[in-house]
């Protein structure tokens, strides 16, 4: 915010909300991309940890970055790359944070595996055994992604 003010940029409530909301969306996609990519890869005959799963996850993240870019009127490949990077880093950080809080999602390569992890906060939202871990990782990824994107949007006007 200091950068924004120092550079004369205007801060609007709607702009900040959109920054946080779009970042949260991308962070959530980033958190869910790996296991969702694994599940989709399994549906076409590949292993959930295969390179096809990785590529599907990539396409989910890249596609989501473009969606957010289009929604916000962005037509800049550099910003798309940053959005994709923020989504992945936000998602990874969200998984790590959820793991610290007791919801194990690390190493999960498909959504179907969520039911096989040792239940810790399994009762969370009363979903299937430990599928709550996925939800928790997704929420944490969304929050962190939103926060990172919020910071990026604040710093953006000060960039050359």
């Amino acid at each position: 915010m200091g950068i924004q003010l120092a550079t004369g940029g205007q801060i609007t409530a709607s702009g900040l909300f959109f920054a946080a909301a779009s970042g949260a969306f991308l962070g959530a996609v980033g958190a869910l991309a790996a296991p969702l990519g694994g599940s989709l890869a399994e549906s076409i005959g590949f292993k959930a940890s295969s390179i096809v799963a990785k590529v599907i996850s990539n396409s989910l993240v890249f596609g989501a970055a473009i969606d957010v870019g289009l929604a916000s009127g962005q037509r800049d490949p550099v910003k798309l790359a940053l959005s994709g990077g923020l989504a992945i880093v936000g998602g990874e950080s969200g998984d790590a944070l959820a793991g610290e809080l007791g919801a194990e999602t690390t190493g999960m390569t498909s959504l179907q595996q969520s039911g096989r992890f040792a239940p810790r906060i399994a009762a969370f939202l009363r979903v299937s055994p430990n599928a709550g871990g996925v939800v928790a990782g997704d929420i944490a990824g969304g929050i962190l992604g939103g926060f990172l994107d919020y910071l990026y949007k604040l710093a953006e006007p000060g960039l050359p």
Partner: protein
Amino acid sequence: MERANAESTPEPEKHKPVSWIAGLWLIVLSLFLIAAYALSITPLLVLYDWRFLASFVGWSGFLWWWLGSDSIPGRRKATKGFRHSWLVLGLSLLIGGGLGYVSGLAPIGYSIFAAFSAASGAKIGWVYGLRGRIRYCTRCGAYRWHVRLGGNVYCNRCGHQWARPVEGPQTTRLRDKPWKQKDS
């Protein structure tokens, strides 16, 4: 006894799962479309810069390497480790995107998104679409993706080496049509 055996032996699949092939190429196509979109919004001045082309090749090579290779049970281990983690990919996107704001290095930043998308599609298109095939695995008792390794072809699930079911010389060609013996 026969009934028990019949229950334990899976019914062989009769039809090749064509939807798998369609799914694979759909993913490849969508990634190329994403890359094409990224290139279409790249400024023309940047697009014709040699640094853009060089970094496009560089980033593509990086992603090709980052994706690594799949495991073939008993034959080859999957590429793993921190260097192939999601965090490295995310950080490289952030670093590459950040370079887009550095004067003189901007073309490097402009190329990363398109390069990553194109290389993702190219890698699976090459490994599975062009060099791999769906074949019936006699050990699994089902159709599986088969991949090449060292001149041979292996099931990606069990590592069983694929061989043609018809009489004839051993070959590693992966064509759909069965080998036919020429009339002498």
